[in-house]
């Protein structure tokens, strides 16, 4: 899951980025409204964390412009503005959640999980495909009865697959949602990681869940027939 942080306070952006990355999210940061809007436009994010008092274009305007361009990415406003008027105005301007600074990092993470859950088709707190389950809270992955150890990137990749089951995911989509903007999508890193993941979750289990569609991308599905392009 890829998250954009629009925050002018470098240190705040840095610790959020660090904390989120340790939770296997891919994180980009933008230091002002202008850069933030640009990045939100060219990349596809699963969630945006937005500060309101930011230079060049302020947070209210960023919010307005993102929504008026029919982009309905979940937006979590994270700001020091804590009056009731501000919170009401923020939620009414189209943000999905509003958290005031200073904040509890645990709460911040839980709200992000809730927002991501709300957006997807899966409303349960954990993700499940066939006998494979993944918990975004504890990061535990279980196939059948066996707990599977994954590296951070493998976990992020699997979470993306499991949030979009039965959908064809192209390499571009995967690179956009699992890696941050430093990633060079021309390499075969994605294929390498998909193979690592396959070895860990499909080897020795039936049915095989991850399949390659040659020239297109990958799909995670329990049923062989269901090959609709998502």
């Amino acid at each position, binding site marked *: 899951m890829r998250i954009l942080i629009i925050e*002018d*306070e*470098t240190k705040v952006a840095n610790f959020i980025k*660090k*904390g989120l990355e340790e939770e296997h999210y891919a994180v980009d940061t933008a*230091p002002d409204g202008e850069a933030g809007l640009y990045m939100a436009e060219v990349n596809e994010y699963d969630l945006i964390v937005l500060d309101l*008092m930011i230079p060049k274009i302020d947070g209210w305007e960023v919010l307005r412009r993102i929504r008026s361009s029919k982009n309905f990415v979940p937006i979590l406003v994270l700001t020091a503005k804590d009056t009731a008027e501000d919170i009401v105005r923020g939620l009414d301007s189209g943000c999905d959640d509003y958290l005031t600074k*200073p*904040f*509890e990092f645990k709460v911040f993470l839980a709200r992000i999980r809730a927002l991501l859950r709300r957006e997807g088709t899966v409303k349960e707190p954990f993700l499940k495909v066939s006998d494979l389950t993944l918990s975004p809270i504890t990061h535990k992955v279980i196939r059948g009865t066996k707990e599977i150890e994954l590296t951070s990137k493998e976990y992020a990749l699997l979470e993306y697959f499991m949030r979009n089951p039965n959908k064809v995911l192209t390499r571009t989509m995967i690179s956009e949602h699992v890696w941050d903007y430093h990633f060079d999508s021309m390499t075969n890193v994605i294929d390498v990681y998909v193979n690592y993941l396959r070895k860990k979750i499909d080897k020795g289990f039936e049915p095989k869940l991850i399949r390659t569609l040659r020239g297109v991308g990958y799909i995670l599905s329990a049923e062989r027939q269901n090959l609709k392009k998502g």
Partner: protein
Amino acid sequence: MYFRSLRFKLTLWYVFILGILLISFSGFLYFTLSNSLYRDADKKLRSLAELISSESTSPLFKFGFGNIDQALETAMNFKPIGKFIQVLDESGRIGKKSENLKNVQLPITLNALRNATNGLITFETNRSFENIPLRIITFPVKENNQVVQIIQIASSLEDVEDALNTLLIILLVTVPSALMIASLGGQFLANRALKPVDRIAQTARMITSQNLNQRIQTLKVKDEISRLIDTFNEMISRLDRSFRQIKQFTTDASHELKTPLTILKGEVEVALRKKREAHEYEQVLESNLEEIDRMSKIIEDLLLLSKADIGEVRLQKEDINLTRFINDLVEQMKILAQPKNIKIETSNHHEEIHILGDSLRMRELFINLIDNGIKYSEEGGFLRITLSTEVHSREKSPFSLMEREETHYAKITILDHGIGIAKEDQEMIFNRFFRVDKARSREQGGSGLGLSICKWIVESHQGDITVESELGKGSSFTVRLPLYPH
């Protein structure tokens, strides 16, 4: 409550004054009228008496008993209606009488008789005659300066007294009722005039710090009340402004403190989420220390400013040799300028400049300004600090146009060639927590209060501070402080 109200007092005064006016007017009217009526009656009696006595054919000359009416009618073709006439001889014996007296006679007082024998006319009012009020003239008729007879003519005063009584009744009825009506009208007018006062009071009572945007509705007519309303509204506006400023300041201050707090909390929470290497903890602690220092600086500056606001900061003013002071300071500041390879030049006035100031505050002032110059200059730039004097002359008072007061100022200019300040920001930079570039200012460790403190220091020394700047070219801060003459 009502009896103490302004409208009651107004009405009372109004009725009181009107009452005095009406009563004196009524009295005047009554007495003038009664006077004129009585005089009129007397005049008629006298002219009749004169007429009768002057006539040579008058039946008076033949004294005797009998009816005088007939005699008068035949002699003078005169029929006195409503008059009682009787003729007496000089010793007071009654002779002829008019018919309407029948068998009674007009009363005659001793006084009147004595007057008459002495040749004097007497007017008397008599109420004892058959319940009719009478006005009686006792008139001596002379012949060769000798009183020969006395004529008494009386006329009834009933008409006069009736008229006067009617007038009195009218006045007794109309004056109080006029006063009643006037008091009602006065109350109505007072109510009408004072109604806006109630509205003002009502609005004023409703205004608290929460609804200072409310105003009292203004009147169409520009009168005293509307001036009062305008004054009230202006006062509310002023309150509103200062409340807003305080609110803004509180918001800014809390926001300034929240940012380092967010960083402290966030960094520590993220660090504690799992076991880490020692150097990672070190990094967090170092960063935390930075934030704590920043918070201390903000709090210190805030405390200083709020103390300054209520006038609790005492200045220890002493004679400062500004030339030496600035030069020493610049030497110290050069260490700070070194990492960015910035040169600081000073150009001194030809003679030493002295001011009266608090050296600690002066240090703070110039360190702040020079430090800003260094922070906002590019690498390898330079600052120029110029010391000079300036004379300001102004009229001593508006009444003595010729007398001019001259104040000598020390003028210190700190010029940098840094990023400059946009025109629209220039007047804001002395405001608390105003930052042209928030991120940059925080990175440099500023509290956002530095220039506010500079402004306070300069103003508490009776000086002023101004800025000239052009975006991209640099800024020049000028401080003027009154010279201390030697």
